[in-house]
């Protein structure tokens, strides 16, 4: 137990330092900040406007009002942003595998996956967070949500779980490159699929697809199930426990992803052979 906390302390200490370094790096290249500050919010503000246009053309989407969609969209973007901050490197794992960039992580006394994500932490992801929070607040207002401490806790729990689910999926996809030895990055595709399945109600898709996205590739837990339970729309699963289910699903996905990553790492070949 003591050892566990000592270890945890070590990781926290390194994390704090690494975040400090990430900020220093940003300051080193000020011209990049402007680009990301425009690029990321632009994407989500436009995406949100388009949902509005679609709702206006079609009346509603599977029984969801615009306010409820905003709530769903906002939370989806927030967990997306968090996954961009902590796990976006997963998209580029193929590059790290081919170029032998894991060498340095393997020769240091910390978890390889931890170093991979945290020494490359993407502080710019914060620029995704802002539009997400704005749209979410807009959704809360439109849905007349009562903001109680319980509500806040539920939201935080589900966001942690949702971020883990997303991150786990990035790791699973990225780890395939240990076996394929290909630097291809499926990030763009992943995001497009995630957008369609987490920013709109999952219930609009056929049963078979809902089944897959609930039990096999648990994207449904990223936003749809927790939100439908919180708002009481089409709640297939409901109750206070739902955000915790998301968290549990997040842990399970992460565990599987970590195991698959470690399995792949045994086949790691470094570069130049």
């Amino acid at each position, binding site marked *: 137990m003591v050892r566990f906390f000592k270890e945890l302390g*070590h990781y926290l*200490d*390194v994390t704090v*330092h*690494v975040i400090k*370094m990430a900020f*220093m*790096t940003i300051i*080193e*290249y000020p011209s990049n900040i402007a680009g990301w500050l425009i690029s990321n919010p632009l994407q989500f503000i436009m995406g949100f406007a388009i949902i509005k246009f679609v709702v206006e053309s079609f009346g509603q989407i599977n029984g969801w009002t615009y306010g409820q969609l905003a709530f769903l969209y906002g939370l989806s973007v927030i967990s997306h942003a968090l996954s961009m901050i902590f796990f976006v490197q997963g998209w580029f794992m193929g590059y790290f595998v081919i170029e*032998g960039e*894991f*060498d*340095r992580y*393997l*020769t*240091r*006394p*910390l*978890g390889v996956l931890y170093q991979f994500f945290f*020494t490359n932490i993407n502080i710019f992801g914060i620029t995704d967070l802002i539009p997400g929070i704005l749209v979410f607040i807009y959704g809360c207002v439109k849905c007349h949500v009562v903001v109680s401490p319980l509500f806040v806790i539920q939201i935080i729990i589900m966001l942690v779980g949702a971020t883990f689910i997303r991150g786990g999926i990035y790791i699973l996809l990225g780890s395939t490159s240990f076996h394929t*030895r290909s630097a291809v990055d499926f990030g763009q595709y992943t995001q497009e699929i995630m957008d369609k399945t987490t920013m709109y109600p999952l219930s609009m898709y056929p049963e078979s697809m809902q089944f897959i996205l609930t039990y096999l590739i648990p994207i449904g837990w990223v936003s749809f199930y927790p939100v439908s339970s919180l708002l009481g729309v089409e709640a297939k699963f409901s109750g206070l426990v739902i955000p915790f289910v998301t968290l549990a699903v997040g842990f399970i996905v992460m565990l599987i992803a970590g195991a698959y990553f470690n399995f792949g*790492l*045994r*086949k*790691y*070949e*470094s*570069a*130049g*052979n």
Partner: protein
Amino acid sequence: MIDVENLCKDYVLKSKEPGLKGAMKGLVKPNHKIIHAVKDLSFHIDTGEIVGFIGPNGAGKSTTIKMMSGILTPTQGQVLIDGRNISKHRKEVVKDIGVVFGQRSQLNWDLRLGESFELLKHIYQINQKEYDKILDELDQILGIKELLDKPVRQMSLGQRVKGDLVASMIHSPKVLFLDEPTIGLDVSAKYALRKFIKEINKVRHTTVILTTHDLGDIQELCERLIVINNGVLMEDGNLSEIVDRIAPYKTLVVEYYDEVAPEHTRCKLIAQDGNVAKYRFMKNDVTAAEIIADLSKEKTIKDVSIEETGIDDIIKIVYGA
């Protein structure tokens, strides 16, 4: 200190046929081939040794050193550092090793050099006192302190190598691995690197294992050589021993006043260029003095010199060139 036992490493290689047709074929039915990069390698290294790995490109020396430092997982066999298996207890064992891998730097490109060391200080949990002490010590060998505030991206290759050397030693490892450390360096940077290796070996008794193509590195640094070819250990021993075993001969160069060079029964005339003739003789069979005495009876000699068999001849012989 280090035990390498029956180490093997296989790679799966996708072979491709040339041209558009080959590309199509690879798409439908990729060809897989297993390459045995390292085959059943065993040896032992003691504390404080400096061991050089030599062998041609693709001989398996990088693969071996990468298995020894925990980067690659062996297909078979094991690497024990201080009795602990590095692939099973990676996080524990790597605290005792430092790594410098040729052109791959572990320094943060965007920030000042000091930041990279600070990060390592946190990763290896070095306290401030220890950290200052080791930095002082390394500064005396390499003069690193004047570089601390310089962004790594603005450094020369030589300065970056210095930075990487310090980074690899900052946690006072017992073993230092270097893979082609002198590649691309100028003379003064090479000199600094060799001095560094000798110093840390002498003062801190750090065990040093390096691969190199640079004969100077070997002559300057390595008491012991391990020669690998095709993934197999060809030679293991100190430099002069190996030379005696592989090439137990010397070359006598004699200059005459004309172009007629006499033969000698106990040595071989291997080359003649104008007035200069080269004789090869076995070291344990005959001495140069005897040969010179015999030859001078037949012709007047203008000048003589003796060529020792060098490490480059050894490499040529081992590489089969």
